[in-house]
């Protein structure tokens, strides 16, 4: 018996278990487009043989912000990537709906053309391209969002550095560029993955300010953040994931108030 063999057997079992447990979610699957603005149902996703997302499902009304919380390895990033239809993890079962459109059969670029924008955790600024080229890249496919002028107005730092190679930006600037890049597209669902990660406290404040500005725009958003308090400050709703499954669903305020819950699942 090799190592990976054991792993894959375990994954198979967990997969079957999850299918039974999520009977309720399963019931929704295949019932067609939901009424809500955004919904995902019974997502099961794998990295190779590793079973990462185990039956996650939730809904978000238009314009609301959802904080997706959980410990390290709870499957938060994977859930976001699954919704954005990134190449991995592989979605083996489940549905993703945005404004009545089925996203789950799509590829990454098709989902992006439907208005889903992922701001990934390591920003994924493209080196070798200038700041402006990074923004230009976001405006190649329809539907486009903000014009350059508006972006530069909102992010004067980026304007200063527009001709600079993007990989020479500081971490905070890269995060700004990543958010700006998303806004350069016509975003219907913004997926923010760890926007504060690895940033100095001063910069965190700046990004916080930017995000609260974004909040005013009324863009439906899912935010994943280690720093749960910061995320909950922005969010309307909250979901807690543990081991690939949803263990709590409620308003952001409830989580902030419920110390036990925070203690058990978020270690804060």
């Amino acid at each position: 018996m090799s190592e990976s063999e054991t792993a894959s057997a375990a994954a198979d079992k967990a997969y079957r278990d999850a299918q039974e447990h999520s009977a309720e979610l399963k019931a929704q699957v295949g019932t067609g487009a939901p009424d809500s603005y955004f919904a995902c149902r019974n997502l099961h996703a794998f990295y190779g043989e590793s079973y990462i997302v185990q039956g996650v499902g939730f809904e978000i009304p238009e314009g609301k912000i959802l904080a997706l919380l959980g410990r390290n390895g709870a499957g938060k990033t994977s859930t976001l990537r699954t919704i954005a239809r990134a190449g991995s993890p592989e979605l083996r079962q489940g549905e993703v709906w945005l404004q009545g459109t089925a996203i789950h059969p799509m590829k990454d670029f098709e989902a992006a053309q439907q208005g889903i924008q992922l701001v990934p955790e390591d920003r994924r600024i493209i080196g070798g391209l200038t700041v402006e080229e990074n923004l230009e890249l976001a405006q190649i496919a329809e539907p486009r969002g903000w014009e350059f002028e508006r972006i530069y107005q909102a992010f004067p730092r980026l304007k200063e550095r527009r001709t600079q190679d993007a990989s020479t930006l500081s971490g905070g600037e890269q995060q700004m560029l990543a958010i700006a890049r998303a806004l350069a597209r016509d975003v219907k669902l913004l997926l923010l993955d760890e926007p504060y990660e690895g940033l100095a406290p001063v910069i965190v404040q700046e990004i916080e300010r930017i995000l609260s500005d974004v909040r005013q725009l009324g863009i439906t958003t899912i935010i994943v953040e280690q720093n749960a308090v910061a995320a909950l400050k922005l969010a309307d709703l909250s979901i807690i994931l543990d081991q690939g499954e949803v263990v709590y669903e409620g308003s952001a305020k409830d989580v902030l108030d419920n110390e036990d819950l925070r203690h058990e699942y978020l270690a804060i």
Partner: protein
Amino acid sequence: MASITHFNPSTPKRDLAVMGIFALVVLTAPIWATPIGANYPDLLQRFAIFGIFAIGYNLLFGLTGYLSFGHAAFLGVGSYAAVWIFKLLTMNAILAVAFGMLVAAVFAVAIGYVALRRAGIYFAILTLAFAQMSYRLAYSVLTPITNGETGLTLDGNDPRVIDALFGGGGEGIPNPSLFGLELTGYAAFYFCAVVLILAFWVSLKIFRSPFGLKLLAIKSNQTRMRFTGYNTRPYVLTVFVISGMYAGLAGSLMAVTDPLAGAERMVWTASGEVVLMTILGGAGTLVGPMLGAVLIKYAENIFSAVNDSQLADLFGFLPEPVTDLMVGVASLFVGEGWHLTLGLLFMAIVIFLPGGMMEGLYRIGGAIRRRRAGGRAADNSAVTQPSE
């Protein structure tokens, strides 16, 4: 590809059975090779020798995923070393084989030590570069040792010190022997066959050993092993040397069955050939590489030998215009066109059977089992697939 080994939960009992069947199939080769026109000593020897080569290569590639493109160099030096033993000391095959493996091991340590500083395609190019250098030098500058293009051959004037000591020698050039038993024709084949069975057994033991499992783990996640403080290099180097010795063994057996060593055994296409054999048969599987070796050597020796007049005989029962057409079409794929067949075969196998021929066998096996299982409904095939 490692997952193919999972089809076969291994138990000592099962391994014994595998060994038994393998040995039986190898030893009965002259019988089953007859209907396919492959029953003549030279080709059977080649099956065994290249089987050893591929099995050894698979230890490296199948277990660790390191793609060496220079294994032919070890085969080449194994051959030269063995022929030099024949020339200088004795015609006894045991000494030649041992020395061939030893020299190959020394080469493998040297090349492996350097090349394993890099991984992935960089490792492949490093091994390729070393092998090409060996080939180029053997062909030209090192001719005094290798006899260049003509190849190193035996000579009536060779000293053969040990044999001379025991009063051997005599007229003409002697044949390699095993303590008096002349190793020519079928005797040589059976000698190679026994060595092949031993080589297979060693490979099986390595696959099942903790060492083998560790190598598999290296393959599945090199970086994680590094982070956990594992220094993987000694393990990979060890298996690199073992697999180099397999190549040296194969090379020296080539010299035993045919006392000649040529530089072209080291050229990059020869290295490529063993890679192809391994992948074609099924890398990471026990028997696959052997199958790949047999298939390629069979194609090389049999397809290439078919000519128009034989095709005409084959299709002779048809009306003449049809015969001509059939011969015309078929001749594209045999004789001078046998490379075309080989290329198409590579493509077909890798397109339809990503795991090589072994996957094909497993699929057939699986289909039979399913048919036996009869009406029992497939369990959870109702999982809805997202479109990807």
